[in-house]
C-alpha cells in the first residue's frame, strides 16, 4: 500500500480540485487481495454438464464436446446443393426429425438473430423525370450538388446517384482527386504507415476467411 501513496500526492498536486482528483483516482485500477480473490472465484466456472459424471450412463463412454469454431467451407450449405444431390434429401430428413423432437418438447421454433443493418424493401419510386432532374442539377453545379446531397434530396442512396450521374462531372472528380492527394501528402510517417497497414489488412479479408 505504501507504493501507491506517492502518486496520489503528485496527482493531487497537479489537480488541486478534490472532486476531479477523486474521479481520476477511481479510474486507476488498484489491485488488492480482495479483488484477486473475487476475480479467481468469478473465473471458476462450472464445467459443461457433458464433462460431469453422467447420471444416465453407468459405464465409461465417449464425451463429444468440440470447442466452438468457424464452420468448414467445404461443407456446402443445403441451399447450395444441386437438386439431384443426395445430401439435400438427407438434410431434409434430419431437419424433419429435429423438428419432430422439438415439437414434442413444445419449445418455440428458433428465431433468426438480429440483422446488422435494418432490412429494407427496395422502392422503385424514382421516375425518368427525377433522373433527368438529377443529371441536370449535377451538370449545372457539381460543387453544390454532390452525390450525397442529391441522394438526400431524392431520398435514395448515393450509390444509385453515382449510377445515374456517371461521367457527368469529370472535372469535379479530378479536382477531388487532387484535394485527396494534397491531404495525403501532409500525412506523417505514423499516419501513412497506419493507413497503409489498414488497407493491407482489408485486402486480406477477401482471402483468409
Amino acid at each position, binding site marked *: 500500500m505504501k507504493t501507491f501513496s506517492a502518486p496520489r500526492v503528485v496527482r493531487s498536486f497537479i489537480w488541486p480540485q478534490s472532486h476531479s482528483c477523486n474521479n481520476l483516482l477511481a479510474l486507476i485500477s488498484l489491485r488488492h487481495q480482495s479483488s484477486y480473490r473475487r476475480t479467481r472465484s468469478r473465473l471458476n466456472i462450472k464445467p459443461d454438464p457433458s464433462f460431469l459424471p453422467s447420471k444416465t450412463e453407468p459405464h465409461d463412454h465417449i464425451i463429444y464436446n468440440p470447442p466452438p469454431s468457424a464452420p468448414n467451407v467445404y461443407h456446402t450449405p443445403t441451399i447450395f446443393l444441386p437438386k439431384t444431390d*443426395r445430401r439435400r434429401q438427407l438434410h431434409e430428413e434430419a431437419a424433419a426429425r429435429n423438428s419432430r423432437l422439438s415439437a414434442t418438447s413444445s419449445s418455440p421454433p428458433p428465431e433468426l438473430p438480429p440483422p446488422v443493418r435494418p432490412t429494407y424493401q427496395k422502392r422503385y419510386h424514382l421516375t425518368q423525370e427525377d433522373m433527368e432532374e438529377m443529371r441536370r442539377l449535377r451538370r449545372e453545379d457539381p460543387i453544390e450538388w454532390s452525390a450525397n446531397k442529391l441522394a438526400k434530396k431524392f431520398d435514395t442512396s448515393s450509390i444509385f446517384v453515382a449510377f445515374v450521374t456517371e461521367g457527368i462531372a469529370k472535372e469535379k472528380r479530378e479536382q477531388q482527386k487532387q484535394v485527396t492527394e494534397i491531404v495525403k501528402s501532409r500525412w506523417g510517417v505514423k499516419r501513412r504507415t497506419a493507413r497503409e497497414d489498414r488497407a493491407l489488412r482489408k485486402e486480406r479479408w477477401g482471402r483468409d476467411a
Partner: protein
Amino acid sequence: MKRLRLLRWSDTVLSPRTRPRTIISPQCQCRRWQSATHQPFLREAHSSKDVQGQVPDTLSEEHLLRLPSPPIQAASSSAKLAALHARLQLPSRLPLQVLARTLVDPSADPSPQFNNNPFSILGNDFLGYYTSEYIICRYPRLPLAVVFAAMYAYVGPKALAAITREWGVEAAAHPGGEVDPGYLQFRRVAPESDMGSKPSALISPMPDASSGWKRRGISSRTVHDDEFGDVRQSAKDKEASSTAIEGVTEEKASTNFVRALTGALYLHSGRAAVKSFFREHFMSRQLNIASLFNFRHPQRDLSRLCAREGFQSPVARIVSETGRKSRHPVFVIGVFSGHEKLGEGAGSSLDEARTCAAVAALKGWYLYSPTELRVPSEMEEPGARKWDRLLVDPGDIVV
C-alpha cells in the same frame, strides 16, 4: 477401345535406346548417331568392333569426356539409377537405360534421340490431362482462375522441382559422358545472365502491352494459353530463346525430368501404370483449394449469386458478439438467405465479420464437391460402369 501395340511401333517413335535388348542389333548398340563432332569416337568404335568382333563394355576416359551425356552402357552399372528405379517402385518394364535418358536435359545433349525432350512433351500432356480432369470433376464449380492456380500448385514447375528433390534426384555440376547417369544432367545458366526477362503469369496476371496483342479476361486463356493460364511461347520465341540462353535453371530441368519420366512410363508400361503413378506421386499431395481464392467485392458477388440462382437476397445477422465497446471486440456474423445460413465469419469489426461471412458463403458455393468422384479417363478402362453426366455449372459470377 483398342489397345495400342507400342512395342510394334516403328523406329520413328521408339529410338534404338528405348527398345528391348533383344531387338537391338549388335551394330547399333554403342553407335551414337550424333553430329560430326563425335566422328573420332565412331571410327574407333567401328575399328574396335572389327578387331574384337564385339562391342567393348567399358569406354576409355578419353571417349567418355567427348560425349555430351553418359553412354548407354553406363546405365546398367549405375547404383544411383537402380536405387532411383527401386525407390519410385517403377515397373520392371521400364528399363534403366530409359530412366537414364529421362535424366538428360536438352541443354546437356541437344540430340533428340538422347535427351528427354520427346518424353517430356508426352508426359506434360498426361500430367495436364489427369490433373485438370481431377480438379474439375472434384470441384465442378471452381472459377477458372482458381483452376489455373490449382493446376500450377499440383503440376507446375515449382511443384515438379520439389517432387524431384523429394525423390532424391541430385543434379550433376556439369553434364558429360563421364558423369554417373543417376544424376540430373543439364547445362546451368551462366551466373551473370539476365533471368528477369519474362515474369511468370502468376506474378503479372495481365499480359504486358509490349506483346502487341492485348488479351484480357480469363476465357481467352483457356483457349490460347497453356495449362496454367500462362502465355504460350510461340515457336519463333522459343527458337530465339534457345539460341540466346545456353543453359537452364535447375527448376526447369527438374520439371522436364518429371514430365519425361511420366511419358516414358506410358510408352513402356501403358496407361494403367501412368495412372497409378500419377495417383501415388501427384494426387497424394495436399492442396487447400480454399486458400487459393481472392475476392475483391464478396458481398456484391454474393448478392448477384443469390439473384442469379433465385434465392432470397442475403442478409447479414449478428450471431454473437463480445466486447463491443472494448479495444478488442469480436463479432460473429452469419449471412442468411431466408432461414438458410450461407456462411459465417468472425472479425474485430462489423465490416470485417460481414465481409468474411460473405467470403465463406461464396467459398461454400464454389467448393461444392459431388459425393462420388468419377473422371472421364475411367471410361478407358475395360469394364467401366456406364457414364453418368457430370454437374455442369453455369459459371463464375460476373458483375
